[in-house]
């Protein structure tokens, strides 16, 4: 008993020595910013929710980072993946019976968004399949792993999350030594498919919807409203910003989804160009620190998982900010560690816990 206790202590001690404190500090920093701005926009309910999620997420983070090992993760990847696929199916079926778009699954007092967890489960599963990659004939396995959750999320319908699952997968596959010929053929096929669908499959109204989606300015009262209000918020911040809690677009509710997907608009409106540069710097250091961890990893599975997680953070950052700045259609992709939302926060903290646990040398 005492020897097992000793071994746990020893283990914690060795792990603490190799702990990437830098990541923790940066994460804490970003989370504080998130909380402060949530407080600014909605001091009551949403702030408390987010605080609870962050505390819960931190516990999860520490538990995972101290207890998880690469081999356990690799072993349980298919189970995690399988459970997530089943959850997605459950959401699809229950959501249909409820006659409407449904992304949530109730687990007792919690309402969980399985598609968020599917992002992580899929990237871990992809990493595992990639480890066993021998030649391009194994590609279909990876493709299947990616496409199943993508499809199940897409029909919920949750286009934003579905595309995130797909993009993260593609990002990981990019690191496989795939022959150039195959890549070219693949791209060619996708282009042809798009052309075919556009010319022969879609009706005019569907095409119009897609065009509106790609260029929100075509429909300023409808799909474009979010984009335009967000650009007004960002632009009116000018160089210095309007000041903390003085952003009229956010404070007076002109900005929709200001606590979730458009939290960065609030930041840009209240802190201006300068504040945005500071934020980019912070997020940039965070991403580079993660990248540095990957490069020190020896185990291919660990580095592939961490790479996927790196892609996860980068792609959420890129698409969310693109959306806020009116460069990308509004698809409902949160800004990791910043946006309000329990499931996404849990997934972020879990991912970071995994990274930290994998970073320890055995």
């Amino acid at each position, binding site marked *: 008993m005492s020897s097992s206790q000793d071994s746990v202590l020893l283990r914690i001690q060795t792990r603490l020595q190799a702990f990437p404190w830098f990541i923790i500090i940066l994460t804490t920093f970003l989370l504080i910013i998130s909380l402060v701005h949530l407080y600014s926009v909605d001091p009551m309910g949403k702030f408390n929710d987010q605080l609870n999620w962050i505390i819960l997420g931190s516990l999860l983070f520490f538990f995972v980072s101290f207890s998880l090992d690469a081999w356990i993760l690799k072993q349980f990847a298919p189970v995690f993946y399988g459970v997530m696929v089943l959850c997605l199916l459950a959401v699809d079926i229950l959501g249909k019976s409820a006659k409407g778009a449904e992304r949530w699954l109730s687990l007792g007092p919690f309402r969980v968004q399985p598609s968020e967890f599917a992002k992580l489960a899929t990237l871990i599963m992809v990493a595992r399949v990639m480890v066993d990659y021998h030649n391009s004939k194994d590609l279909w396995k990876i493709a299947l792993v990616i496409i199943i959750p993508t499809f199940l999320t897409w029909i919920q319908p949750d286009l934003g999350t579905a595309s995130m699952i797909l993009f993260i997968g593609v990002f990981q596959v*990019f*690191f496989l*030594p795939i022959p150039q010929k195959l890549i070219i053929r693949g791209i060619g096929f996708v282009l042809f498919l798009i052309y075919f669908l556009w010319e022969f499959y879609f009706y005019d109204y569907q095409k119009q919807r897609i065009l509106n989606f790609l260029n929100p300015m075509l429909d300023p009262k409808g799909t474009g409203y979010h984009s335009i*209000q967000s*650009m*007004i*918020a*960002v*632009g*009116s*911040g*000018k*160089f210095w910003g*309007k000041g903390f*809690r*003085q*952003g*009229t*677009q956010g*404070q*007076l*509710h*002109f900005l929709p989804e200001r606590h979730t997907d458009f939290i960065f608009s609030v930041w*840009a409106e209240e802190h*201006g*160009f300068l504040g*945005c*540069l500071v934020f*980019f710097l912070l997020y*940039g250091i965070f*991403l580079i620190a993660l*990248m540095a961890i*990957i*490069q020190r990893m020896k185990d291919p599975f660990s*580095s592939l998982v961490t*790479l996927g997680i790196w892609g996860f953070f*980068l792609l959420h950052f*890129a698409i969310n*900010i*693109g959306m806020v*700045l*009116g*460069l990308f259609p509004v698809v409902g992709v949160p800004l990791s560690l910043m946006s309000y939302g329990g499931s996404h926060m849990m997934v972020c903290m879990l991912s970071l816990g995994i990274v930290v646990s994998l970073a320890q040398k055995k």
Partner: protein
Amino acid sequence: MNKSKFKLVFIFYLGILSIFISRLYYLQIMKGEEFSEASTKNRIREIRYDAPRGLVYDRNGILLLSNKFFFDLVITPQYLRRKSKVFHLLSHLIDIPEAQIEKKLLESSKLPSFQPHRIKKNLSLQEVAKIQSMKFFLPGVEIHHAMGRDYRISGSSHLLGYVGETTEKEMETLTSEYHLGSPIGKHGIERKFETTLRGKEGKKFFQVDALGRLQSKVKALFSSNIPMESGKNIFITIDSRLQKTAMEAFRGKSGAIVVMNPQNGEILAYISQPTLDLEHYQKGLSQDEWENIMNDPHKPLLDKASAGLYPPASTFKVVTALAALEEGLITPQTTFPCHGSYTLGNGKWKCWKHSGHGVMDLQKAIAESCDVYFYQLGNLLGATRLAKWASLLGLGKKTGIDLNLEYVGIVPTPTWKMEVKKTGWSSGDTINMAIGQGFNLATPLQILNLYSAIGNGGHLYHPFLLKKEISKDGLRIKFGEKQLVQSISLHPGNLEVIQDALRYAVDSGTARGAAIPGKTVSGKTGTAQVVNLSRFTDDYKDHAWFVGYSPARQPQIAVVILSEFDGGGGGKVAPIAKKIIETYWKNKL
């Protein structure tokens, strides 16, 4: 891991970052000002306050037009609670169906919710009291004061005009100071002096959220409120005592009376009957009331003084006489016999006095209004020369009063007839023209102007209404000025002959009814035949004219009266002129 692929990913990341930074630079630095404005537009709403319009006094400082408050019931949706209970209570208090309240709110649902929506106009004082006593049970319901006009003189709707709401069509030509529905003077003094009377509306700015609710938690700067400025007060040339006298004397009749100072064109009284009840009009007319007005054969909406067209009839004879004298065709001593009719070619024209006037010289002919005498002058003159003199004396042209719609009338010529009637001119047309019948059409104001010119020595003035305009601080005064159209050059003696004849007409001729003991009056009556013109088959009576001035030399007051369907010649309306001129002299003393 593949090092080169890491590099690629890193470059991809840097690429995205630089795109974002340049986008931020574009949005926040280059377009920052524009987006700032857009965000201000989002959150700032303005409420406009109408300024009180300027007051209008008559020439002696008697108030004709001022302002008063009306009470409107308004609901401010932001503060409205327990909707159905409030509506139910309201419907009992002010007699308005609940459904209508709901409908009114829905109609203006595009307005921000902090803005009061008008539910009912012109509440009575009892209704106001009822609402106030129940105020506790009516959250969001308020009584608003609306500014309206207080009419201190009745029966003068064509002179005063009224204030209405700016229409979409008017917006096209107006400056940005006007908005759809903002008050604007329509017709009469209210329109003519709109820019002076209007003042400047005030503005209050509010900050609202995306749902239009008033919000003050963000203290961002916005422009300060703009106070309203009331309109400037004016004194008009009208003498309200003359206006009232004329109105009373003319009660129940249809037509126009205008009184003017012939020495400068100042309008002293201006009446067109029937009139609108402005007080009632301001409160809003019902559909039935509107239809009654529109279908009234006496046309209460028409300003008959400047847009009523009538054959000038015998009042035109002075034009014929002056033309014949000036063209040297006759002298004052030239005589023609009148046997009751005049024959030219196959035609035969009767004198109004079928037994004939006997031998007539010019003065007698004017005083007795002998038609046969003027038939002969017309024949001597011809249509073209007659038309030339009519135009010289201001007929066929606008007088330029610019009060309401003004018509120019018709001075017929052979070319005019060819163009409009598509037939040639006959000598009979000239004969009719010479006594002011036929195609001749003129407004009472034109006839008044013509006689003023005869009385004052040949000077034609633009009639005007502004006595003085007081600056906002009350210190500076701008006076209205007379404006000469033209002075007609005449042989010295000729005008005096006509003036004497007109005096003779009042002293012992057809216009005897206008004579005032102790004062000299000159004038002329006329009877405009309606039979062949009338659209009203049940009313064949003729229009009666009187036009004249006093005193006979250097006149100070000129009066024109046209009474529609009054029959019986100018003798009937001359006493009205007498009353007006008497009042003038009485006040003068």
